[in-house]
Each structure stands twice: as structure tokens, then as C-alpha cells.
């Protein structure tokens, strides 16, 4: 059936966007480059265009495709099989943080009674809901909220608010936490797989589309291969010098978070991987002179990304791995199209934040060895309790087991009001002089 909205969406996707992005690229002046950093990645431009395209098309998607707002750890493959256009409020929160728009949005949520002690991604998103403010122009109204608590319980508290304020359905994928010492979580896997099967008819009703198992299998394949490619991208950082830093990886993470299960995501990581392999071959590093190799724990401090990148580079410190970026490469090997629901349950139920601190310590110890890490920076993120509580203990454990130097900095992923420049500078200065 003919539809103006569909025509507008298709023409924007196939004609207007490619043309305007190409013109934009020609007009764009090169940014000034910090001498302590390595040459910029060619792929960065492609990434930017991809994300502009994603958010621009999101504006036009309503009425053309069913729209879902999704948490970063939710099994989006189910939605892809039903042609949902997906938007990730966490990714949007990170964009707002990096663009220094989060503080105002957080304040808008606080004016509605939400406590400043709550997660700043949630406050940013709720602030957007109340004020309409966003650096990406406009987000499409969702038809569905799809949430998994495998990364934290906060996302459920937060999405519950969105469901209430917007009056739209919320589908939860409840992923039981796996404590240290627990063996194969078979009851939990059965529980998760049963939930996934049970939610298909509801998703079909909302999307007004029929669930196509062949398409589902194809999406799983794309997801698995994208995640494996992302893993290979990260593995290039084992080289000396590492061809990019984790600050670059925080940015290049966007497709695996937001576009997982789509061909464009897999294509992108193939291109990025080629470029990084080329840099490894040519001995080009993410920073000009790599003397010390570091690991980052927790979400990025989005509004300080560039500053931190320059600060560490100027001291010859290259971040070569992070638990955060690793999370999207860690469990996707469980994805198996032969038994898709159980595979999704295993892949999404066993992510780092859904496991005990003993598991995390062992993973970090392994990464320290594999990436030849000399030091560890823990970001104690006021907004993220599951990631932050226990870091002091992890710090002691890993310093003792691996003999690496460590530091904890207190900050927040998007809200600059929870960050003290002076205090952090002093701590980092002392760490860098160790």
C-alpha cells in the first residue's frame, strides 16, 4: 500500500542522506589534531555518517516501521526480525553527555521530582521526555519499550517511568543474576528462553508483522558475526603500539550497541578491522609514543573523553582494553541459530554485569595478561551501582594478583555536577607519576 511516510523514509534513506552526507564531507574542515595522539582513524568519518543517518532516519521512522526504545543489553535480535526501528536511550545519553547537553536534561527530570541521586542516563532520558531537548534533533515516539535487566535493575525502574509517562507497553526480558560459585544456570536459561518465546506474540501484535524464523536466524548470524568482528577489532589493541586507544573504541562502540543485527554494523566493523590491521602492520599507534599500557573499568566519562584522551596520551599512556567495550564481544559466541531462544538466553544472561565480582576479577586478570597491561584506571561511576560497587575490592585483588598500578577516580558518565576536576587531576597526576 502506498504511503507518503514510507516514500519520505525511503527517499531520505536512499537519496537525500547519501547526497547531503557527501556534500557535508566535502565542506567539512579538518579538526586540529593533538600531537600526542596518533593519526586519526579514517573510519571515524564513516562512523559519524552512519550515526547521523541512524538518528536522522529515526525521526522519519514513526508510522513507517514500528519503533522500539531498547536497553543496551536487550536481545534486540527479536525486534530486528519484526522490522522494528530501534533507538537506544543509553546511546542517546552518551551522546548527550559527550555533547555536554546532559546536565540541562538531568535538571529537567529533577524539576519533575526525580532525585539527583538517580542514574544520570535515566535522568537525561526522562529530561528529554519532559523537555523534548536533545542534541540529535528529535527522537521518534516509541510504540514499544524493550528492556533487559541483565546490565542493572535501574533500566527497569527507568523504563517503567517511560511506560507510565508515555502510556506504551513495556516488555521486560528478566535475566537472573549469576552469583560467584554458581555452576551452569540451567533453570535461569530455561526461564529466560521461556520469556523470549512468550513475548513473540506480543511483539507481533505491536509490530503488526509476523515473526519470520528465517529472518530471525539471519539476524542472529549478523549479530554473532558483528560481535566477533568487534572482538577482533578490540584484539588488534594487543599489538604494540596499539593501533587505537580505548577512548577511540568507546566511540566506535556505537554500532555494536545500536545497530547490532543489521548488515551495516557488520560491514562497518569489517572496514574498521582492515584499517586497524593496516595500522598494526605499519606500526601506527593510537598515541604517538606508547610507553605505558592501561586498562579502563566502567562506562566512559563521556563529557571528559577528549580531555582524558589527550592527558593520558601526553604522558605516553595508551588505554588498550576496557571491561566496558569488551562486554559486547564477550558472550555472543553463545548465539546459535539452531536453538535461537536458548542461545539468546545464554548470550544475554551471562554478560559481565550480570555476574559476580569474582567472575569480573578473573576476566580482568586474563585481559591484563593478554593485553600486557601495566596499570588500571577504575572509574567509580556515581550513576552505575552494579559497575561501581566492589571496585575498591577489585582494585586490591588485581594489584595483588597482577602487580599492576591502579587508581580510582570518582565521576559520572554524563552528569558533570558529580565530577571534581581538581580532585581527579590530583589523583591522575599521582597515578601517572607512579
Amino acid at each position, binding site marked *: 500500500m502506498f504511503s507518503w511516510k514510507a516514500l519520505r523514509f525511503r527517499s531520505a534513506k536512499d537519496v537525500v542522506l547519501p547526497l547531503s552526507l557527501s556534500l557535508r564531507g566535502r565542506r567539512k574542515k579538518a579538526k586540529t589534531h593533538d600531537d600526542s595522539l596518533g593519526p586519526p582513524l579514517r573510519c571515524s568519518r564513516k562512523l559519524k555518517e552512519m550515526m547521523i543517518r541512524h538518528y536522522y532516519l529515526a525521526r522519519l521512522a514513526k508510522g513507517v516501521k514500528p519503533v522500539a526504545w531498547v536497553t543496551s543489553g536487550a536481545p534486540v535480535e527479536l525486534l530486528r526480525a519484526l522490522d522494528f526501528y530501534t533507538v537506544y536511550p543509553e546511546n542517546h545519553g552518551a551522546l548527550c553527555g559527550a555533547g555536554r547537553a546532559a546536565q540541562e536534561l538531568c535538571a529537567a527530570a529533577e524539576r*519533575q521530582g526525580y532525585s539527583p541521586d538517580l542514574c544520570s542516563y535515566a535522568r537525561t532520558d526522562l529530561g528529554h521526555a519532559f523537555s523534548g531537548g536533545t542534541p540529535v534533533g528529535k527522537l521518534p515516539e516509541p510504540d514499544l519499550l524493550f528492556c533487559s535487566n541483565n546490565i542493572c535493575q*535501574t533500566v527497569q525502574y527507568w523504563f*517503567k517511568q517511560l511506560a*507510565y509517562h508515555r502510556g506504551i507497553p513495556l516488555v521486560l526480558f528478566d535475566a*537472573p543474576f549469576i*552469583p560467584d560459585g554458581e555452576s551452569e544456570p540451567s533453570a535461569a536459561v530455561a526461564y529466560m528462553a521461556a520469556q523470549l518465546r512468550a513475548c513473540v506474540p506480543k511483539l507481533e501484535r505491536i509490530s503488526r508483522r509476523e515473526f519470520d524464523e528465517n529472518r530471525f536466524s539471519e539476524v542472529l548470524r549478523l549479530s554473532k558475526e558483528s560481535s566477533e568482528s568487534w572482538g577482533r577489532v578490540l584484539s588488534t589493541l594487543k599489538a604494540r603500539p596499539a593501533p587505537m586507544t580505548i577512548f577511540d573504541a568507546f566511540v566506535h562502540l556505537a554500532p555494536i550497541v545500536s545497530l547490532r543485527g543489521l548488515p551495516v554494523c557488520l560491514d562497518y566493523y569489517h572496514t574498521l578491522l582492515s584499517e586497524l590491521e593496516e595500522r598494526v602492520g605499519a606500526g601506527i599507534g593510537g598515541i604517538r609514543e606508547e610507553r605505558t599500557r592501561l586498562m579502563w573499568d566502567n562506562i566512559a566519562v563521556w563529557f571528559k573523553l577528549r580531555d582524558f584522551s589527550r592527558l593520558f596520551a601526553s604522558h605516553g599512556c595508551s588505554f588498550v582494553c576496557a571491561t566496558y567495550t569488551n562486554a559486547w564481544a564477550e558472550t555472543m559466541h553463545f548465539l546459535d541459530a539452531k536453538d535461537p531462544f536458548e542461545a539468546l538466553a545464554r548470550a544475554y544472561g551471562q554478560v559481565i554485569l550480570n555476574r559476580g565480582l569474582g567472575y569480573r576479577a578473573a576476566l580482568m586478570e586474563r585481559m591484563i595478561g593478554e593485553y600486557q597491561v601495566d596499570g588500571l584506571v577504575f572509574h567509580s561511576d556515581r550513576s552505575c551501582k552494579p559497575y561501581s*560497587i566492589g571496585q575498591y*575490592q577489585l582494585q586490591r585483588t588485581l594489584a595483588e594478583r597482577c602487580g599492576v598500578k591502579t587508581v580510582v577516580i570518582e565521576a559520572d558518565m554524563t552528569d558533570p555536577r558529580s565530577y571534581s576536576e581538581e580532585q581527579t587531576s590530583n589523583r591522575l597526576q599521582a597515578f601517572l607519576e607512579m
Partner: protein
Amino acid sequence: MNRSQYLRARKLEGRKVFGVFPAQYPKELLWAFDILPVEIWDPKPAACEAGRYIQPFVCSVVRAGLELILQGKADFLDGFFFPHTCDSIQNLMSIVQSIRPDIPCWFLYHPRAPHGLEAESFYAAQLEGITRQLGERFGTVSPEKYADAVEAGRRINSLLREVYERRASGELGVTNREFYDTLRLGEFQTADDYEGALTGLLRRGESLTACGDGTLPILVSGVLANPPELLDRMDELGIRIVADDFINLGRRIPSPKEGSKGSPSVEMISDYFSLPPCSTRGFGIEERVLFLTRLLERSRAEAVIFWTTKFCEPELFDLPPLTKELGKRGVRVLHIETELNEGVSAQVATRLEAFVETVNRERGAEI
């Protein structure tokens, strides 16, 4: 006899004692194994060690519990039980496992609402697993003993419902402080002793003058009634708490049921899924509003006080929409945020006083 003396006396009788973190757990199952659960909500050890393990933005329930363990005041325990109530308690378990590997930990995940059939199966599988693990360590339990424990739980829940009903109808003339001091005995007493305490409270209430006249009937919602000095202040201001939606009390009392319909575990599962909606178990705003509205009607409370504990994320998220929805229904609402065991600030006392004056003025009552 204080709590510590009481617990040590029970240990001398040969009982095992488990430290249980908030909030919901299969108490009857532990009773069946002759394990006395002692709930760790708001102990009062001086803060000194916990800051080495957790950040200042973690709630005082978790902080105080960890402090207790670090100061060696939980050394006599035979085990810990960690229900998955929130992200903070989840990670606390990992910390405790690493600093006290000598004390075994048990864990229960709460399936988050909305609960389908798969949630019931999963909960049942977990109960089965815990029963098996406890059996391996402490010996198996006969079905009769398990049934007796479940029955004791039913009797206690029935008494609790009666206590709240009598309180609401103005027949239980004890102070707010006495009321909660008695109700909270269930956090560490044996089933028999707690049953006795509740029966005693009901008898005592009968002998006192009715307390309804001239007081302001209030519904309180939050984590727990701490600091207790706030209860004293409410007593002074003529507030009578007639119903609560506290995580440690009202939200742990299941709906009443007629007779016994199955095995002990079936009964426990049925009770679990009939608990009131709670922020920590994923219930939607609409369900919580409906529950609070019905509780208001049933208890004839004339206002609501949300009494939250600082940094309690699940409660803080629900607060704005609950306040808005109750406001739409013409219910007066006050929000007070406190830290455990830190007394009542002048600011909180003044806000409470102003709230009582406003509500009383509106209802035309004499203060």
C-alpha cells in the same frame, strides 16, 4: 534481652543462625531447617571500615550491614542469605563472599514482574535448589516439619493482618514507636516467640483506650521505619500510622487464603506471588497506585508520607509518579528522606509539623 543476647541464647540451644539481607526470602524454609534468620536492615555499628569497600553513594542499609560484618559482629553466624533486592545488595554479596569465604552464602533471585507462568516455575526451581543445598549441609527436613513451618508463617501473617486492621480501626492504642518495635521483632525472633509478641500486642491494645479520636490517620510508604525518632515525633504530633507499605513490613504480608491447597513449597510459592507490589520486584506504577489507593480506603488514612532511605534507587524512581497519581486523587502527600540511625533533622521535623498542620486544617480537626 537485646537482639544480640537473644540470638546467642538461641545458638546455645543448638539453632543455626543466618544473617539475612533485605528484603523478601523464604523464611519458612529456613525455620524448617531449624535455622533462625536474623534480618540485617539497620544495625548501628560505628562507621569506620565500610568506606574501604563501598562508595559514599551507596545506601545506609548496605553500608551498615557491611560494617557489621567487617567489625566481626556477625562472626557467630552460620550463613548469609542474600535475596536479589537491588544492584547494591547484589554486589554486596560478592564483597561478603570475598572477605568472609568461611561463611557460606545463599542466594535467591526475585523474578521481576510482570510474572508469567515461567516466573513461577523459575521461583519453584530456585526453592528446590536452596532446599537441596541446605539439606546437603544441615541434613534433610521431613515434609511434616516443612508443613509446620509454613503453617506457622501463615498464622503469623494472619496475626499481622489483624494487627493492622485493629490499628486502622483505632482499637490498638499503642504509640507508633511501640507498634513498630513489636512488629519488627519478627526480624530476628523465632516463629513461636514472634507469634507470642503479636498476640501480646493485640491483648495489650484491647486493654488500652481507643486511639482514633483527634489523631491524624496516615499511610506510610518506604523501606523501613528508621530513624525511630521520627516515629516519636509523629506520636508527638498526633499522627497515627494506620497502614504501611514498608518494604520490611507491609509489602511482605501476602494476601489471605482459605485453607491449605498443596505441599509446603506450593503454598510458599502461592504466598510469594500474592505479595503486595514492590518497587524492588519490578511492579509497574499502575499496580502500585492501585494497591496504595485500596490501602488508603481500607485503612481510612487521610494522607500519605513517603519515607525513603537516601540512595534507595527503586523507591526514588517510583516516587514522582506515585506522588502525582495520589495528588490527582486528592490525597495529601509528604516526602521525607532519611539516613538510617541518624536521628531527625530540624528540617525534617519542621516539614512534618507543617504537613500535619496543613492536613489538619483541611480536615477541620483540632490540633
